[in-house]
């Protein structure tokens, strides 16, 4: 019956919470997050894989949620912008984007921050070139990227000094 109706039972973890959901096989991960769960922080800015607004972490790796079917995320760990704030405080990256004005209209911001989050987990001390390469799949139309680079550098410095303090 379920095959005929093209639905699957999806088991995954979203922002640390285990979920079991019945999803249509053609449901995009971006729509699953936004429409089914109500996590609208993840944005959709294009018709598929062009802009990077929907970037989320799947098992720690930044990916376009608009190019991934939800049903293929079986047992995956998915993290979205809503999960980043730590203990009621914005994360270092979020503070960087806010305080350095790495965000203007804010529409690319969730995807941009998640791409940066993925980058910093892989490489906690990227140079400017590595930041540029790490964010190359994310378009911003407001900032000219100058303050986005500064925002990421702010987070790198914060995390670095935190690491040294620890």
């Amino acid at each position: 019956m379920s095959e005929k109706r093209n639905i699957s039972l999806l088991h995954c973890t979203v922002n640390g919470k285990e979920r079991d959901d019945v999803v249509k096989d053609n449901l995009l991960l971006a729509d699953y997050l936004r429409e089914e769960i109500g996590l609208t922080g993840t944005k959709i800015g294009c018709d598929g894989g062009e802009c990077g607004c929907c970037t989320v972490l799947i098992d720690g790796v930044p990916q376009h949620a608009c190019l991934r079917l939800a049903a293929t995320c079986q047992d995956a760990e998915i993290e979205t912008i809503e999960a980043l704030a730590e203990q009621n405080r914005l994360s270092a990256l979020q503070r960087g984007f806010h305080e350095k004005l790495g965000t203007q209209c804010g529409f690319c911001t969730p995807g941009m921050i998640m791409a940066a989050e993925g980058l910093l987990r892989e490489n906690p001390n990227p140079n400017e070139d590595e930041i540029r390469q790490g964010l190359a799949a994310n378009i911003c139309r407001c900032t000219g990227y100058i303050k986005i680079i500064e925002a990421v550098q702010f987070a790198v410095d914060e995390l670095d000094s935190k690491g040294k303090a620890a």
Partner: protein
Amino acid sequence: MNEIKPTKSIGVRTPLVDGPEKVSGKALYSADFNPSDCLVGRIFRSPVSHAEIIDVDISAAQALPGVKAVITGDETDETFGILPVARFEYPLARDKVRYKGEPVACVAAIDVETAQKAIDLIKFKYKELPAYFTSQEAMAEGAVYIHDHREGNIEREVDFELGEVDEGFEAADFIMEETFNCAEIAQVQMEPHAAIAEYDPTRDFMTVHASTQVPYYGHLMLAKTLKMEESQIRMIKPFVGGGFGCRTECLNVELICALVARAAGGTVRIVVSREETFITHRGRPETDVEMKIGLTKDGMITAVDYKAIQRGGAFSGYGVVTILYSGGLMFGVYDLQAVRYKGLRVLTNTPPPGAMRGHGITDVRYAFESLLDKMAMELGIDTLEIRRKNLLQGPKYETLNEMFINSYGLPECLDWVEKASDWKKRKGKMGLYKGLGVACAHYPSGASKPVNWSGEPHATVHLKLDWDGSITLLTGAPEIGQGSTTMATQCAAEVLGLDISRFQSLTSDSKLTPKDNGSYSSRVTYMVGNASIDAATNLKTILLEAAAKKLEVKPEDVECLGEVYRAGTQDEGLTFNEVVKAALEGTGTITVKGNFDTLPESWGTKKYRGGAISGSMAYAYAAQVVEVSIDPETFDITVVKVWAAQDVGKALNPLAVEGQIEGSVWMGMGQAISEGTQYHNGLGITNSMLDYRVPTIVESPPIEVGIIESIDPHGPFGAKEAGETSLISFIPAFTNAIADALGVRPLDLPVTPDRLMELVENSTSNKKAAE
């Protein structure tokens, strides 16, 4: 004891007041509203560029289970449009379709799949008409009229001659002319257009959330096309993902959404695709410019004669203003004493352009600055120096078209970029394939005459003070990412000497906030900033009076220190909360109002029809130096660095001003190096962000910003425009740098590597042929 001081807000680097929502994913944009009973709206679009509509058969679509409404052009016979003189567009086409992708019908259904199935069941019968995709084709003799009332497919022709142009050219030692083509540009704001309309049939009441820069104009057009009372509509602008002018007029998306919601008797959300966002367009029109300049041998401009032809698409939109701006805004940068202009806005069967950032003047300024540069090089005059020679003698200065320049920081902008770029040492001496170029620009701080004249002030701000000591700033001004709410809060906070954390804000909700004309033509800082100052001043008067009564002194003897009000330095005074309590005694919650109106001297010229359009209270100025490096084999162009100086009057928030200037420079770079729409028989073939190439972070240059503060006499704390001028100056500075690097000068935009290679090869073979 620490000295008590009012808190400073102006000139302080201030992160956006709505920043935390944006970085945490909590900010709600139009597409993020999804109530459980919400229907999905989908638009059926014309598959042809120009045709008579024979029939739109929606019977099969209506019969599909799950479909709640299907509407066509029959739904309303009311037109919409931003300009009262050019309101010829229907939300859904009637009688004719005029561009490929024009909305024809709309379905509201229970889910996306059903809506799409219903769209596929619509049978559209039409009779094709000849279609024109270039200005030249549309203007050719015998072309059918796209609109019956626009003969020859000319939407608007502008002609003026101010000063003695022929005499000016006679007095010139050196005259040159050149023809430029600038591709059509799209804003590509990150948020695709979206609207959610909630119709309440029991009250006949409509609530619309939409991605717009102009909720008030949207409100007017909703009432017109729905034939509803304006008071029966509530228009809300939630968070908006950028604008750059694509939403400075009401779009068909929000109107169709409301029409179909009413037909369905419920709530409908329409989120259009990126492709549909490109089709909705309202970008910068493709423009051909013929520019002619006369100079004396020492580089003084004697006359300018130019023509601009804009491919205006199928509907006017802002087009009449665009073609007028291309004329009127030639004035005000340099001292020009003789100018002739002819502008043609042409109707074509392509999507309608609009008022994109740098509206009307970008392409014309590019042509002027490019030709001036070329002539300076031929005369052996330094290209920065020739600009300096032709500066205005002011302020105060009145242009030939009666624009009043009350603040003019362009000389300082030139000084700054000259020094910062090490111009004198490096210009012309960087060797082959490397170069420096300079250019200037200006832009108004809001049009002094509103589009819809209502007799009301240009801007109104409310401040609500309540028992808890918090102040809520209420403004209709649409925050679209530019930081307008932060700016308005800073202005009020500065007057009251309070920290901005005392303030909350509520923006752009027609039920709660005072009306505002919208975020366009760089009007908000100047107008809403001034209204915010006025409101805060009025509130301060009330607080001073209340404090005086409590302290048993005269109001003029009370000193406001923000958190403390006191009578003299020895007085312990009252805390802000005590003053609030005193002020509310017997009256309750206080709401004060502040207004801003423009001065009649800024209302522009009557010397030619439509000339008033260029009138503004103040103009921002920019000078920019761009450094390029060109790969000798591939002709890939790298923008190595940009030095961008802009006279913003006063940087109310230097952080946001930098952000605006950097973003402008970068958007100008996109237009210069890679952007441009293309059509194949009217079909957009660049309607994705892969085919329409905006620069990525990898190819974006370092930008050094020089903020020049000329302190405008009427601006809020002296402030002027900050978000458009530097886009305009980038483009000519860039091609001027290429001319410095290669000795050949690109004329057509964008300057792609293949075009540049062709240009160099042609110039080399021409030289060889001449030898």
